[in-house]
């Protein structure tokens, strides 16, 4: 798993090729120029969220310069953070994401351990199957899944549709395959002698997993956890399909369906909500960028 060390790769081509150094100085200037353009392109939407979120509704409807805040106010933040409904969305989202992370790890880690270390009948096929599952998009499965859970409700009387916890069953289909896949890669990169040493030291399979594999593959585990959390947090289609009552909604769906009501777009609040909804992934990204990127790039590699 060399992907984690990608950013630390120090030596870039700062070598001077004699007469080419003047060309390189120009190339560097052009690089900075275009990077600035792309950075502006990248950051305009989030910055615009921030700008709008600080405006009162009067200033928004007055159509003053949209790129500037003349009368900054926190009323949108106060309004949303004290609203029971918004708190409910946030709670639902946090609950779903955290529990899904736990479920994902409980399923992925043992499976990845077995698939990377114990060769058994069909293990290679299963590993490939896991990868293929990861390629199946949500938009292919939402209709049959919806009907399935509706049927379960009809047959057993256990009503799962329009309950936030139904998402605990659905989200793992998005997170588990990828997390298993990258954990297989991380586990496979642990030298075989390490578990043999543990076996000779008297460790059982479970002890080898918990006391050797998990600590050694911790960077991979963190990357997988971040992935599972951000995917769960950002998921939009499934909660839109499965939940409708306001008290069952997760944050993204809640903001889109309840704040955009009728003709009166309360853009100050919508942007505030969007920013607050984007905050948890952004905060994780800011603090654990290396792990985030390691998880991102690990998907296309096999160990």
């Amino acid at each position, binding site marked *: 798993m060399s992907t984690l060390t990608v950013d630390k790769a120090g030596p870039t081509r700062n070598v001077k090729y004699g007469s080419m150094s003047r060309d390189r100085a120009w190339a560097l200037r052009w690089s900075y120029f275009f990077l600035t353009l792309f950075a502006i392109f990248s950051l305009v939407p989030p910055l615009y969220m921030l700008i709008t979120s600080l405006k009162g509704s009067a200033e928004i409807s007055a159509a003053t310069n949209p790129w500037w805040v003349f009368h900054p106010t926190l009323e949108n933040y106060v309004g949303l953070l004290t609203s029971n409904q918004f708190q409910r969305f946030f709670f639902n989202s946090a609950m779903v994401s955290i529990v899904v992370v736990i479920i994902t790890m409980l399923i992925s880690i043992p499976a990845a351990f077995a698939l990377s270390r114990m060769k058994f009948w069909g293990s290679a096929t299963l590993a490939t199957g896991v990868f293929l599952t990861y390629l199946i998009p949500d938009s292919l499965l939402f209709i049959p899944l919806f009907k399935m859970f509706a049927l379960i409700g009809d047959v057993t009387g256990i009503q799962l549709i329009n309950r936030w916890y139904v998402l605990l069953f659905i989200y793992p289909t998005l997170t588990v395959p990828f997390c298993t896949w990258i954990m297989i890669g991380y586990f496979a990169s642990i030298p075989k*002698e*390490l578990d*043999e040493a543990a*076996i000779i*030291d*008297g460790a059982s399979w479970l*002890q080898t997993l918990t006391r050797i594999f998990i600590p*050694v593959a*911790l960077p991979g585990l963190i990357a997988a956890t971040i992935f599972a959390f951000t995917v769960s947090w950002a998921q939009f289609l499934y909660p839109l399909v499965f939940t409708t009552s306001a008290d069952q909604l997760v944050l993204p769906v809640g903001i889109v369906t309840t704040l955009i009501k009728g003709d009166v777009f309360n853009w100050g609040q919508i942007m505030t909500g969007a920013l607050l909804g984007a905050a948890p992934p952004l905060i994780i990204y800011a603090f654990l960028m290396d792990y985030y990127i390691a998880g991102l790039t690990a998907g296309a590699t096999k160990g």
Partner: protein
Amino acid sequence: MAEVNLRKVVKRYDDVEAVRGIDLDIADHEFVVLVGPSGCGKSTTLRMIAGLEDISDGDISIGGDVVNDVPPKDRDIAMVFQNYALYPHMTVAENMSFGLRLKHYPKAEIKSRVAEAARMLDIADLVDRKPKQLSGGQRQRVAMGRAIVRNPKVFLFDEPLSNLDAKLRVQMRIEIKKVHQKVRTTTVYVTHDQVEAMTLADRVVVMNKGRIEQIGTPNELYHNPATRFVAGFIGSPAMNFVPCRLEEAEGRLHLRLTDRISFPLPPARAARYQSVSRNEPLQLGIRPEHITETKPHAEPGIEPFEALLEVTEPMGMETLVYFTLNETPVCGRVSPNAGARDGSPLRMAMDLNNMHLLNETTGLVI
């Protein structure tokens, strides 16, 4: 402390036999080295003793008990791996004590055992470091320390020095020998390096193609190899093999190397080879140190001949010379002042008292 016995041990992978019926008895306290080229089955044998590979056929016993179906942790063995296999997330002390902690030893005892082993290996001031912060030699010591604290019946070493540079390897070799002299634990040591095997072992087991070629003390193997494989494998530079015949001339047994070169055999050798049929294709096996420059005084059994040197390699205390004899490349060792020069002829002498005669078809030493 215990002896280790292998009885007709076989390891099969699908249709390939990696180990083909090995019998080996290792006495208590003994230091035995399994040596051979890669793929000879030495590591597989070691791993079967460790319990990391199951045994296809035969029995392995440790301390008199058959352990075929005993899991590694209950065999009371410790193993040192080629790449050290230190747990990267644990400190040196934690690495060494992991096995004891799994067995729930009292804390005080773990502490004293680790301290004792660390002192013995001279790593007492490294115990709080992580493996990443250690040099290759230090990691090797920790790996040994992890084996020592367990106080097992048997130590198993799987090519432990091959990741170290040449200088450190010599140093660690001595270290391993010292440790063995102190703890006296039965040791099975696998290496592909014959020098390591010779210097460390009480007895050396030479393996080839899944079989044992010869078992013996280092000196036995060097001076009385049983097969061409052992003769060629032990010793550096390797023994020379030159096609030859025996013939009767002037009433004495002669060794004919080429049309021009034929040596009378010394009486002891002649008596030994009397029964070998004349004109049968044979091979002369002779070590480079027994092909030297001529001495001022003729000695019995040392026969002179003329050689055209192709390449010379001055080594300081000696010079290695390469020439062709009966269309076979041959290496000799001469004194640095013998006047050996690339491309020039030199008068050489072959010490037939130390010769070996091999049957060309069976490869056995006669």
